[in-house]
């Protein structure tokens, strides 16, 4: 039996097709977020990839910021529960998850059974979120996807002290005008995000293993800086960006089993 998890985030939509609650059959990611055609597109793509139709899905669960507005869904669940569920499936030893999303950052703690135990989220502020990285990348004329590669080339991390996105942007501009190396600037930006997110993680308590989920986890520079701030290794699964969608697909499977 197939279930689908659809994660409609603020900057990207992710989709997983799961077989019998065990095997990941299909994956799809579209980099446009909630309120766009992204959700429909990723959904269509995932189905098309395996020549499936809606009727082939036993159950469809949506999550993410756009979770209330996808009509064909059977149910919706919060992205916190879904990320916890997805990561616990991918990496059963993980007890702490850090998820940096497009407009928020969260730290989740799981109990020994892999269930969500407690969580904290950032204030309504762009600092320490994907949005912050996006603004800074824009300022440096880079794509956000390129930030990780540039980070690896840094030799001396530039210091970005302001938390405020507007002030930090002006720091970046002034450092650019002083000819600070681009890679060093990128590393400094990652440090700034990591410091902010580390506060959240510490606030929620850190139990090993620690993993990152969400799309920002693909940025090796953020993972590096966060690992340094938390003084611990951070696990990143190849499917980290799809963890929320996977969790949703798993919940769909559980609901299906309950119905039966």
């Amino acid at each position, binding site marked *: 039996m197939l279930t689908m998890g659809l994660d409609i985030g603020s900057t990207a939509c992710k989709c997983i097709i799961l077989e019998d609650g065990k095997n990941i059959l299909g994956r799809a990611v579209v980099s446009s977020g909630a309120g766009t055609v992204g959700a429909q597109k990723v959904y269509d793509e995932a189905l098309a990839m395996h020549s499936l139709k809606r009727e082939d899905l036993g159950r469809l669960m949506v999550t993410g910021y756009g979770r209330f507005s996808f009509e064909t869904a059977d149910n919706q669940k919060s992205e916190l529960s879904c990320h916890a569920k997805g990561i616990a499936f991918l990496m059963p030893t993980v007890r702490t998850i850090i998820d940096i999303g497009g407009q928020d950052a969260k730290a989740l703690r799981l109990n020994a059974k892999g269930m969500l135990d407690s969580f904290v989220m950032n*204030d309504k502020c762009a600092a320490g979120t994907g949005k912050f990285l996006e603004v800074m990348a824009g300022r440096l004329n880079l794509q956000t996807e390129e930030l990780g590669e540039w980070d690896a080339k840094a030799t001396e991390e530039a210091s970005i*002290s*302001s*938390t*405020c996105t507007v*002030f930090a942007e*002006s*720091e970046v*501009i*002034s450092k650019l005008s002083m000819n600070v190396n681009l890679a060093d600037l990128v590393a400094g930006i990652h440090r700034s995000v990591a*410091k902010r997110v*580390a*506060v*959240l*993680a*510490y*606030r929620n308590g850190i139990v090993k293993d620690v993993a990152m989920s969400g799309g920002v986890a693909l940025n090796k520079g953020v993972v590096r800086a966060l690992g340094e701030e938390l003084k611990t290794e951070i696990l990143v699964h190849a499917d980290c960006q799809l963890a929320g969608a996977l969790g949703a697909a798993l919940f769909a499977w559980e609901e299906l089993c309950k119905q039966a």
Partner: protein
Amino acid sequence: MTETVAQKPKRPLPKSRVMVAAQTAKVYQDAWDAKARGEKIGWSTAIFPQEICETMGIPVLYPENNAAAISAKHLGDDLIAYAEGQMRYPMNICSYARLNLALAEKIQDPAYNTADPLLPSPDFVLLANNSCTQLMKWYEQLSHNLNIPIFFVDCLFNYDEEKPAAYKVTYIRKQIESYIAEMEKFSGKKFDWDKFLEVQKRSQINSKLFDDIIQLNTRVPAPVNGFDFFNYMSCLVLCRGKESTTEIFKQLKLEIEEHIANGTTSFPAKEEYRVHWEGIACWPNLGHNLKTLKNYGVNAVINGYVTAWNIVYEPGNLDSMAYAYATSSTNSLTTETIMNMRSDTIKKFDCDGMLCHVNRSCKMMTFHIFVGRNIVEEKTGVPCSNFDGDQSDSRVYSEAQFETRVQGLVEIMKENKEAKNG
């Protein structure tokens, strides 16, 4: 309030500064020694009636002063992050409190030695809320986290223009009396009222002397870089009732008089403009502040913060002392009262403008600025400029913004001068 101005001095420090450093080191050492002997030591808010512990010879250290010193040495960020992370304090509370609450926990580990100067852990805290209400919440947390008693003198807030009514002064005086009795019990030491009178007299001599020194900077050009005064505040916070402070102030006065006689100044550039600095220093950004001001020839000749320790009363009269502690802090008076005082100071010091630190940590001072700048502009005709910053949290300040605001202020001051000189 600290010995470390971020800018490295080109010349050897003046003798008075060396004396300050030695005095501060001694206060910390005395506290550590007492702690080692198993005696009780305390932490105190900056404008607490220090005369009582001074009389009883009980060592007391001052977290506000300590936090400022640590921040000026750029050692505060990790502590602040620890307070917000592991300890879960929201980032919007006072940064001195965040820094100190983290430090109070860190120093429970004898191996901890990252912060400088390092305080011994307190056995009690002394709380006066005349600077703000957050002090009360901060010290409640210290007491809660360390399980130690609070000695509290509630100094109220003077929400009306008129002088505090007699029943308010009585309430504060009775608290001081009760505190003396409690401290006798707690410390097992007898309170010596004769010595108390001596300490009160000494405190008055020091307050008066510092005020005289500040007044010397009314001269144009000023003999002192206004930022230098920050370096002597520790004398008033840590050692208001000590003779060593008198010696330091006498020496400082000599040095300034020498500048006046020689026509020299400690301001490192030509004084083009004189401004009144409003608010606490941005300790982590002192270097950038000073560099920028110097580049524009702006001497912050006077600031309201360094005059907050002018606690004047009649020795031997507890009501008079209670009254002084209720009214000396900038933050215990209404905006109108404070801004009228500032306007007078601006005229007296011949300031061309006012530079206001919108300090994220200090709500009360910020309100004074927001509500009061109209009063200052109307009464004095000088322009005011605000900038964002913080006393300890380096994440709030923006170098670019500070420079823009200073430059903007300078442009207006320049126009005003040109108009005046026709």
